[in-house]
């Protein structure tokens, strides 16, 4: 099988389930009222209209910006906490149970807390995004730091590096694969949380638009707006996959699959 055939086969395996889903939906749309199962062409046209109409697309960008800001904030803060937890056992003992406790709090509860504690919409959403993804980022960076190979650390230390050089040549490259994984995992979580956060109090964004569609009983619109966030997650996942392929090419690849 040549490369084109392999590509076509893989693309087919990805597309076929969605074609099947669309066919089932279209069949249902023929027998059900349009406000419950709108026809596929309606959904497609609404989805496309969001992408080409700036006033609507700006809502998508607002949500994307909130996700990225929240993830960045949580990652930076989480990485700082993780470095303290790894260096200082007392901090680890103090923070680990607190972060585990935070992980058990539903995103919707954080939305309520944010509304009570903060005034501005953006502040509320940023807080919710950070606090819901912070524990996972922190634990993942802690695990990555603890998982660094001790013999490699000793080897680098034998050259007596400065703190900055140690970080540059050893720590960052060693934990980079885990950091990419943590972004992939948290990206999915945050895309769900941001919509919940925007449902309450925001005047723009995908969550706000979903609320509008619900009030109008517009199923085609609700799906079209949902598709925007799905597209965003797929695009960012692909970007991360490209970074992985380029930056982690040093890993040995076995010809025999696991």
């Amino acid at each position, binding site marked *: 099988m040549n490369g084109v055939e392999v590509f076509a086969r893989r693309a087919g395996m990805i597309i076929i389930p969605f074609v099947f889903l669309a066919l089932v939906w279209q069949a249902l749309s023929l027998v059900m009222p349009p406000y419950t199962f709108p026809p596929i062409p309606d959904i497609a046209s609404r989805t496309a209209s969001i992408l080409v109409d700036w006033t609507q697309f700006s809502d998508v960008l607002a949500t994307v910006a909130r996700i990225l800001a929240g993830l960045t904030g949580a990652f930076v803060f989480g990485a700082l906490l993780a470095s303290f937890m790894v260096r200082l056992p007392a901090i680890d003992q103090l923070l680990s149970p607190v972060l585990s406790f935070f992980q058990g709090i539903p995103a919707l509860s954080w939305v309520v807390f944010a509304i009570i504690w903060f005034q501005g919409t953006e502040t509320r959403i940023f807080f919710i995004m950070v606090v819901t993804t912070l524990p996972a980022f922190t634990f993942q960076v802690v695990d990555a730091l603890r998982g660094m190979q001790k013999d490699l650390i000793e080897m680098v230390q*034998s050259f007596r590096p400065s703190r900055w050089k140690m970080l540059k040549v050893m720590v960052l490259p060693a934990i980079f694969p885990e950091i990419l994984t943590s972004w992939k995992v948290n990206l999915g979580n945050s895309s769900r949380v941001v919509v919940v956060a925007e449902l309450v109090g925001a005047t723009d964004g995908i969550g706000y638009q979903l609320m509008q569609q619900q009030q109008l009983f517009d199923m085609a619109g609700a799906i079209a707006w949902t598709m925007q966030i799905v597209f965003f997650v797929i695009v960012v996942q692909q970007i991360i996959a490209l970074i992985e392929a380029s930056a982690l090419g040093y890993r040995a690849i076995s010809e025999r699959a696991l």
Partner: protein
Amino acid sequence: MTAHTQVRNVEIRFDRVTKVFSRDNRSYSEDFRAVDDISLDIHSGDIVALLGKTGCGKSTMFNMIAGLIDPTEGKVQVAGRDPFREFDSFRGKIAVVFQNDRLLPWRTAIDNVELGLEMLDVPKQKRHEVAQHWLTKLGLAGHEHDYPYALSGGMRQRVSIARAFATDANLLLCDEPFSALDEMTGQRLREEFANLVRENKKTAVFITHSIAEALQLGDRIVVLKKPAKIAYETRLSPDTSPEEKERIRERIREVLAG
């Protein structure tokens, strides 16, 4: 020889050194005397083999020379200074070859060789030239841009030897660097390594549990025996006859067995 000249020529000095690992350290159930009142001078240009069975204290002595641990009693000096307390001042002056290659998997062969030079802030072009020189000298021309996973065990150990020589450190510390290799590769690398040390007028201390390796590499053999004492010491020269070497081999066997 004046007292002053004598001090200048001593590269490493152990002055009544004792190292006790406290049971407070979680690794030990009771206090453990790893090195017991050892005095030893190693002169510039010497190739010294610290020979002994597992647990005889040779790794502890090695780590004290490298400045990674501090003696409990007595004084360790390298070039007249304390390698533990003046750790950073030995940057570029001590290089270590480990038992396994300890190459950074995310760096190519040449980038691994450049590691020590990066710590010394050598400009990129210069460190590239130096690394290329050592890789070529060790028979790795053409493999500069290979990642460690693509190299054989022998090639990887050659890269790690190139990495140690690249910094032009006065003192080379080797922790059983050839023990993980097959007999043929180990034998060939030992010869190349000894030639490089003599050619470049380095002082080398290597720890080993192999009598054959000590006899092949060392100008001087120091046999350590539990409880961490020097049990036997001898010097070799290029003129040492095979018969004399055989006599020394037998003597070392007796000391280690006795």
